[in-house]
Each structure stands twice: as C-alpha cells, then as structure tokens.
C-alpha cells in the first residue's frame, strides 16, 4: 500500500505494510530518532508525535491511517539549528532535562497542550502529562517550567544560543 503524508512540512510517501507502526518508519526509514520506542504499548509516551497538531503515540499508529495527514516530530518542532519552540527554551532555561529519554515525547505532548490551554493551571498540566512517564525528574520541575512558560505568555522563538 502507498501512503502519502506530510512529515515535518515535507510531502513524503511510504510504500510497505500499512500496519507498520509510525515509530518504526520515523526511526528506521527517515532516521528521525527523537521519538523513542520504549514500551510500544501506549503507556510511556516516549514516542509521542503530533498528527494534525494533536499529540498521539507513534508506536500504536499504523501507517495506513496516516494518508493525507500531517506528522510533526520533535525534529520538526526545533532541530537546534533553528529557533527552538518556546517550551523547549523554557525547559532548557530551567535545566529540567536529566537523561532526556522522555523529553522528545514530553515536549510534543506539552507543546500541543499549552497551545490549546494557555490558561492551564498546575492540576491541568499534571493531567495532561499522565501519559508521559519520566523516570528521572520527579516531574515537579517540568511542571514549574510549563507554569513559567505560560506565565510569560507567547514568548518569541529563541535561539538555543540565547538560552
């Protein structure tokens, strides 16, 4: 089966088994290794990407369901050479990242969440993070950084060098 979709703004085609999980195509064919296959069961959130702007688990997304869709990965959100997403800037500024395994997924889930809920409070942020497990940070500093980011409003995109 042939599937045409947009990946980080570029039209791309996939010709293979339509039940292939998106995570495998991203990592093995497109060499986009930001999203991580950790549990492959929808529980950990390390594989989170955005499909049509909504955070979804790439490990459970069959390629056949992506025809005509827009997929954004952490590489599409900010690759380090271009301005970072303001939430990435907030995470870097607050030095919240430890091993970093969960962070591509965390950023993809929370960047969609803050876009849709600019008034969110701590409880709402925690609820939004339920599907993104972090074994290192204890979560509180991540939540602090999201709260600070929302307090600052829509901060302009910043260069990594500015942080």
């Amino acid at each position: 089966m042939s599937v045409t979709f947009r990946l980080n703004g570029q039209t791309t085609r996939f010709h293979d088994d339509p039940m292939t999980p998106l995570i495998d195509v991203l990592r093995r064919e497109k060499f986009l290794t930001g999203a991580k296959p950790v549990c492959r069961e929808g529980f950990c959130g390390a594989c989170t990407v955005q499909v049509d702007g909504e955070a979804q688990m790439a490990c459970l997304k069959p390629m056949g369901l992506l025809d005509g869709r827009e997929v954004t990965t952490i590489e599409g959100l900010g690759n380090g050479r271009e301005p970072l997403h303001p939430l990435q800037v907030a995470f870097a500024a607050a030095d919240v990242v430890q091993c970093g395994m969960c962070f591509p997924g965390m950023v993809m889930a929370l960047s969609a969440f803050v876009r849709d809920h600019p008034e969110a409070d701590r409880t709402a942020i925690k609820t939004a993070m339920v599907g993104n497990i972090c074994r290192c940070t204890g979560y509180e500093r991540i939540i602090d950084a999201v709260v600070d980011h929302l307090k600052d409003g829509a901060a302009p995109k910043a260069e990594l060098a500015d942080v």
Partner: protein
Amino acid sequence: MSQSVERQFAVADSIDAALSARRSGAAVLAGGTWMMRDPRRGHDLPDAVVVLSGLSGMTDIAIDPDEVVVGASVTHEALADALRGSAGFEGVVVAAEGAANPAIRRVATVGGNLCTPDFSAADLVPAFLAYGAMVELATPERTLILNMAEFLKQRRELLRTAILTRIHLRRDVAASAHARLPLRKAGDYPVAIVSVAVDGEGAIRIAVGSVEEQARRWTSLENALTRLPGLPASPERAAELAREHMDFSGRDGVEAEGWYRCQVLPALVRRAFACLPKLETRA
C-alpha cells in the same frame, strides 16, 4: 518491515462495502490502540483490515432532547467533550475521560472499547450497561438494536460478521457516576469498576467491570437498594449493602487477584454513590 503477503487495507465508503470486507475476513481497524498491540500479546496482526471512520455518521454525536446517538468511531476524548456538563451523563463522561491517557483517548474509539471481548477492564462497557444504552449493529442480513446485556452475551458470535455502528443513549437517566480503581502495576488499567445510574423514576442500575471476565449488572444490590426508603441510598449504606450482597467471583490476573477485585467493590460503590449528583438540587 515488509511481510511476505501484502496486507489488505481498505477504507470503506459504504456500510455494505465494510460488511463485504468483513465477510472476506477483514477485521475492523478503528483507533488501533488495542489491535496494534496484538504482536505484544503473541498474535499476528490481521491480514486484512477495513477502516470505518469515513462512513457517514460514524464520527458524529447527535444530541437531541430525547436521545443522544454516538457513532462507533467517536473517540473517548470527543465523547467526554460532547457530554461534559449534560445532566445524567456524568458516569459516561468520567469513564471516557478517565480511561487510559490523553494521547490514547484522542484516538481510541467507543466501537473499539465495546468490541474487544478479551478486554475485561473496558471502562465504557459498565458505564453504558448502567446507563441503559442500546447498541446498533449492521449485520449482513439487517440492522440490529440490542440492549447492552444482550450485546455482551452475544458479542463474540455477533462480531464475527457484524459491525457496531452506533450507541443510543435515551435521556431518561437523571444522574450517574463511575468509580474505578486503576493500579500502576496493572498498567493503570482499572482492576475494578462500578458504574451507577439512576433514572427519572428513581430506578437504580449498577454495573461492575473488570472483576469478572465480562462486565455485568449487580442486580442483587440494585434490588436491595430499591427496597430502601428514599433514593438514592447514602454512600455508606450502599457500601454496607454491597458487602452483604457480594456475589462476584473475581478473575485472577497478573495485575490483581480475584479476591482483591471483590474486596474493593464496596469502597467503589461508596465512592460512586458519593459522586452521584444530588437529584433534588439539580436543574
């Protein structure tokens, strides 16, 4: 990534086309949150799948004064968003917005939740059972409308050929609640679920999920509660009666043993009754 025989992936443009694909052996693919984990359970993915979400009405929720009709491809998130704040649907909303995690709720469908007979911990099943939902199925011969208990009884057999198309929710429920006990070691699946609904006449329906293989009504407790003066009972009294009328044999699983699932039921009954909106103070 390649498999030796090419897999069939059909996007149905009519219910007849979907039924015909089913007859030729295609499985329905909805959000894929259950099916995509088949290989983790040691099963192969189906050789052929058919997708229904393009069919008219499948992703719609029609809210009328007498009835709410939910398409089978509606996601948990969309269901909770549509019914939040509507009197009587409190339990259905808690079930839809409490299941899984936000990214899963965004894709997991009502149809997928109801059409997975091997999944005992489905939240919407007891919520719809207590609510008194009717299930609409397209079969090769005709359209069938069944109550939830009938559907669950025949589910495995029916789903060999039928497709679930809609859920009908009559608007005669005055208040409802859904209490669940998720456990981290159960992958956050609920190890026991209690759903309660009270209709305009004061009749109580209670459904229990995840305790036995299949969700069912707790009729002995319903009858005991109905005999009490003044409805609904206090949460404490409801929990006492739940202990007296315990008639479940819990299923043993790696995530929880059967006795434990039964032992937590009275506490879940208490919680559900405590969450039940007060009928006399409602608009």
